[in-house]
């Protein structure tokens, strides 16, 4: 039996802030990587922009895994697919709209900021309880 690092109440419920923040940060990291690829390929002939699945779908796929799968690769459930919101295609077949991608990058950045701030706040709640604030 694998060692249990986190108590049951903190790991298995989807409303747990630590677990949720971990999943959220994993998803954000994946998305940032996919968006970076899109921007790196902004002048590659025939390349079409990609994007990851929405966070809700990712979370659903992750929470369906059993507890023993917690060491499964973090990329599970975030397969990227062609970005359907991309508009326009240039003459060389490239379908990456730079400003659209940069806007998504900014969106990911804000989401990351939110997740880390919430995590910090939650930690400070615990610190208050144990009297180290």
């Amino acid at each position, binding site marked *: 039996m694998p060692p249990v690092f986190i108590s049951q109440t903190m790991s298995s419920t989807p409303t747990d802030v630590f677990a949720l923040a971990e999943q959220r940060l994993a998803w954000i990291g994946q998305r940032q990587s996919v968006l*970076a690829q899109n921007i*790196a390929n902004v002048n590659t002939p025939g390349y079409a922009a990609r994007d990851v699945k929405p966070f809700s779908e990712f979370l659903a796929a992750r929470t369906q895994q059993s507890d023993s799968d917690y060491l499964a690769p973090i990329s599970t459930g975030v397969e990227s697919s062609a970005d359907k919101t991309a508009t326009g295609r240039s003459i060389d077949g490239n379908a990456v709209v730079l400003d659209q991608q*940069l806007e998504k990058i900014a969106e990911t950045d804000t989401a990351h900021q939110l997740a880390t701030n919430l995590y910090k706040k939650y930690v400070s709640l615990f610190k208050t309880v144990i009297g180290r604030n």
Partner: protein
Amino acid sequence: MDPSTTLDISAKGMTAQSTRLRVIAENIANSSTTGSSPGADPYRRKIVVFSNTLDQALGTTTVGVRQIETDKSPFPQRYDPANPAADATGYVKTPNVNSFVEIMDMKEAQRSYTANLNVMETTRGMMTRTVDLLR
């Protein structure tokens, strides 16, 4: 995915764009390089072609320069019988480099480079914030 992989992807994008800038510089620098012997071909414009290939070390696809091709368009001719590269009728072939096209290409390369740099800065900010969680 590891955030450093994201940084690597952006870095590869920047390398590709700077190769493109180097080729543009070469084109502009040679925009009046004619042939050395009578009737010889002058400098032929070069074009960089990018491709998205799998990087085994990173385990993801990254952008790279597939090859540097040459522009197949015909050379413009200029009447200059005194030129050593002039053919029997007195015409000199000049390079098929259009400085306006090159400048536009340069702007585009610069813009793409900046975009990659911005992604890099954002990713770095994310990494810093994640590390700051430990404080």
